[in-house]
């Protein structure tokens, strides 16, 4: 077992980043013009990295599978972005953001990286404002903040319920400026098919032009992978339909270690599945839990009556309802962290108390909030002795002001009025904390190949806090990578352009072409989605919110079996030399079928419960915390980085021990 070098700089934690920047190599502006960098993925991390690198003078080639960088799934983030600005004067600081993030991640992230993230967080806001991102403001003209789950300060900046959209459009505008100047060559509707290594270094990629099907060779002195997370391994997730793990998986197969694949965030408030036709799940912002109360019926008779349509949820009296989060976690109630809320919902539904036809839904009820706000509003507006109807009317208005767009979205999907009847929600796969292993410089174990944003593993440990994904993506792209990549590229100033007619490029291109031909020529009997759904079902049942050794072992075998079946019986219509969405899907699902197995293997290896990873074998057996997740710092305070060895099941584990010098390890308690 080799020891991974995370290259954390020496010195006190607050000086590490500054010292590091002061001492690393820098490429002079004239030489940057002779250096090419490939960026795969143009979401917050990739888009901001591409724009920044181009501004610095590098020649950037950026790749996106959509028709524009503006479509990347970062755009769907609703809530906000954290930054330790302390504008609200509530005692926020770099340290506090650092502390909250490490604790929220259940002490499974790297201190040095997280501190740097907190340190640059403020710059992100400055940068975005300078770019014209229209953050929400107070009447005095200054920036507004709101609070998010798991923290005690207000540090979340937001732009209505579309923060991700506005930040992405900011990065996109910076990219557009560089594309216009010719400093970024943009390859829209292109998918990276493989990485090309020359003399052990990342020197380019093989890409497929998705319109013509042409296989293209692109060279560069460094390659940045910012292709997002792999939540779609579950088939149903809140990710976009095209979100995929292929770029990350391809570099894994060529030597980049994959870290903590089992760390997946399952978000508690999503619209439940309504049928087999379902293609994706829609998130309802975490902010709803501030005012909504979560419950299921106490009695099984009522559950059945509701499922059969004989009773409505509003028919049940308070005594007949089980507000299970308030019952189990009196201190935090409905505001427990995401992982805890999700598991509690699953526990109730597994016990048979799910309230819709699939048995996988719980209620999120705004009735008491509407009443509370209504009474308050009546007092404020001077309505004396308001009737019940008046209270409800006033209360609904307040709730509409706060959550109107989410309620409208819910109503469009479910066709029920959430003001009048409780929402139905259920947990869904949302974000993957695991990803490509990288060091402090964001370099993977392939020299010259970097990973940024959700694609890497670095900052969120075993659980991500709300509003931190946008922060990390932009920190990596705007403020970390542009500096650290120079340290590596300083050695390449005399290399000159990398030729693409070398054996390495030709071999890689041939491998890609052969694989595509193989997929087309299987001409089996089942569609790509058939296999993807099958994989998703196994992942959800056995590698989902609660995992155990038996289930995980079975999952590994079953995934392997589906993979074999896929490669002998998939039907991919059309040809490789044309626009062929089924072929694109097939390639991505083929990779998920490998990743899924490693995912299960990692979950099996980590015999502890931490953050989003819950092992049924590792729970508190007695005392106040009975039944809650039990972390094992003695045996598992490490990053599990997997090396590919020909088969996902045969991957070799490398451990990066996590040391905590600035934060004391503690049990999380929400009782």
């Amino acid at each position, binding site marked *: 077992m080799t020891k991974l070098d995370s290259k954390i700089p020496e010195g006190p934690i607050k000086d590490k980043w500054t010292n590091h920047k002061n001492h690393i190599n820098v490429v002079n502006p004239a030489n940057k013009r002779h250096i090419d960098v490939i960026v795969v993925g143009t979401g917050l991390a990739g888009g901001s990295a591409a*724009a*920044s690198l181009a*501004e610095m003078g590098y020649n950037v080639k950026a790749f996106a599978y*959509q*028709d*524009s960088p*503006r*479509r*990347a*799934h970062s*755009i*769907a983030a609703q809530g906000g972005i954290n930054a330790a*600005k302390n*504008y609200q004067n509530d005692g926020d600081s770099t340290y506090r953001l650092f502390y909250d993030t490490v604790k929220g991640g259940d002490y499974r992230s790297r201190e040095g990286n997280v501190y740097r993230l907190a340190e*640059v967080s403020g*710059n992100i806001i*400055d*940068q975005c*404002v*300078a*770019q*014209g991102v*229209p*953050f929400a*403001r*107070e009447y005095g*003209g*200054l*920036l507004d903040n709101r609070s998010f789950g798991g923290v005690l300060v207000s540090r979340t900046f937001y*732009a*209505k319920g*579309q923060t991700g*959209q*506005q930040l992405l459009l900011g990065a*996109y*505008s*910076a990219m557009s*400026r560089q594309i216009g100047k010719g400093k970024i060559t*943009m390859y829209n509707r292109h998918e990276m098919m493989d990485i090309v290594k020359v003399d052990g270094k990342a020197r380019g990629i093989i890409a497929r032009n998705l*319109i013509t099907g042409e296989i293209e060779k692109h060279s560069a002195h460094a390659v940045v992978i910012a292709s997002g997370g792999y939540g779609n391994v579950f088939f149903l997730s*809140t990710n*976009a*339909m095209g979100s995929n793990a292929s770029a990350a998986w391809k570099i894994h197969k060529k030597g980049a270690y994959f870290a903590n694949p089992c760390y997946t965030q399952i978000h508690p408030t999503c619209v439940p599945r*309504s049928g087999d*036709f379902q*293609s994706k799940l829609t998130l309802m912002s975490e902010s709803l839990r501030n005012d909504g109360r979560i419950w299921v019926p106490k009695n099984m008779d009522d559950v059945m009556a509701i499922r059969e349509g004989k009773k409505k949820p509003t028919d049940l009296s308070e005594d007949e309802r089980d507000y299970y989060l308030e019952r189990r976690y009196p201190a935090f109630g409905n505001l427990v962290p995401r992982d805890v809320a999700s598991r509690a919902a699953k526990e109730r539904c597994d016990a048979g108390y799910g309230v819709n036809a699939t048995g996988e839904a719980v209620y999120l009820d705004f009735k008491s909030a509407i009443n509370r706000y209504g009474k308050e509003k009546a007092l404020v507006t001077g309505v004396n002795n308001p009737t019940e109807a008046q209270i409800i009317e006033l209360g609904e208005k307040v709730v509409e002001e706060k959550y109107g767009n989410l309620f409208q*979205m819910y109503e*469009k*999907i*479910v*066709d029920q009025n959430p003001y009048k009847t409780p929402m139905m929600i259920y947990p869904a796969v949302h974000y993957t904390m695991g990803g490509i292993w990288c060091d402090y410089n964001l370099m993977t174990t392939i020299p010259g190949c970097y990973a940024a944003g959700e694609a890497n593993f670095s900052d969120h440990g075993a659980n991500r806090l709300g509003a931190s994904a946008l922060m990390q993506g932009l920190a990596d792209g*705007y403020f970390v990578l542009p500096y650290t990549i120079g340290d590596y590229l300083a050695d390449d100033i005399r290399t000159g352009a990398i030729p693409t007619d070398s054996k390495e490029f030709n071999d890689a291109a041939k491998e890609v072409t052969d694989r595509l031909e193989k997929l087309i020529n299987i001409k089996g009997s089942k*569609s790509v*989605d058939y296999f993807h759904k099958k994989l998703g079902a196994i992942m959800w049942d056995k590698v989902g919110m609660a995992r155990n050794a038996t289930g995980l072992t079975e999952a590994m075998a079953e995934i392997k079996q589906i993979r074999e079946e896929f490669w002998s019986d998939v*039907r991919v*219509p*059309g040809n490789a030399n*044309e*626009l062929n*969405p089924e072929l694109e899907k097939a390639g991505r699902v083929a990779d998920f079928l490998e990743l899924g197995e490693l995912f299960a293997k990692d979950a099996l290896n980590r015999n502890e419960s931490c953050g989003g990873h819950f092992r049924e074998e590792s729970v508190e057996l007695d005392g106040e915390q009975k039944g809650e997740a039990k972390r094992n710092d003695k045996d598992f305070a490490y990053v599990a980085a997997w090396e590919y060895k020909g088969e996902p099941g045969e991957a070799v584990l490398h451990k990066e021990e996590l040391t905590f010098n600035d934060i004391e390890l503690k049990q999380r308690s929400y009782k």
Partner: protein
Amino acid sequence: MNLTLKVWRQKDAKSKGKLESYPVSGISEHASFLEMMDVLNEQLINEGKEPVAFDHDCREGICGMCSLYINGEAHGPDRGVTTCQLHMRMFKDGDTIYIEPFRSKAFPVLKDLIVDRGSFERIQQAGGFISVNTSGNTQDANSLPIAKPMADKAMDAATCIGCGACVATCKNSSAMLFVAAKVSQYSYLPQGQVERKERVLNMVDQMDKEGFGNCTNTGACEVECPKGISLEFIARMNKEYSSASVKAEN
């Protein structure tokens, strides 16, 4: 429900296309329109036919990737939604549904229902940005107060998802609403003032080069826009453009 779909099929950009009829059955009214399309494609694959190519990605109404002209309207008969948010309960059992690509000279069809919206990209590149580098040394965000009504207006304009429904629905294939949204966003903000004149001149110039039609203020774009971008922004751009033209030095 059972439906008859009339779908535009076109092999590639050079080929001529035509409408094909496909029956689909057993569609749940809770399915989204694109999930209905998934069912159609699954059926076509099982029949050994080529599935229908269409753009889609986030399926929650924000990425702007999905398009489709459904029964004579961009993003279909519902208001304030993209195609991926349109649900089958908007249709009746036995309906015939026409599904066509967004049509405009500036949006050439690539295959079936997929169009090339690269023209929007080039308009953005012509001026849809504020020229500021990512140095990390920009001034503190709160050193530049912005009146809330202005910030809110900028946000309303910035909500545009760049889907192209405005162009598709406009009888003239005009891209004014799209361009106006971007121009207006920056014109409301102090950060956007420095390049205000060049921005509007360059973006309009690029828009014209792309072959979009001219705005005749029918207001169809505003009605069909899934994000409800207001015509007010077009008026604002007209004013911005006129004023910039008067003041331009060459």
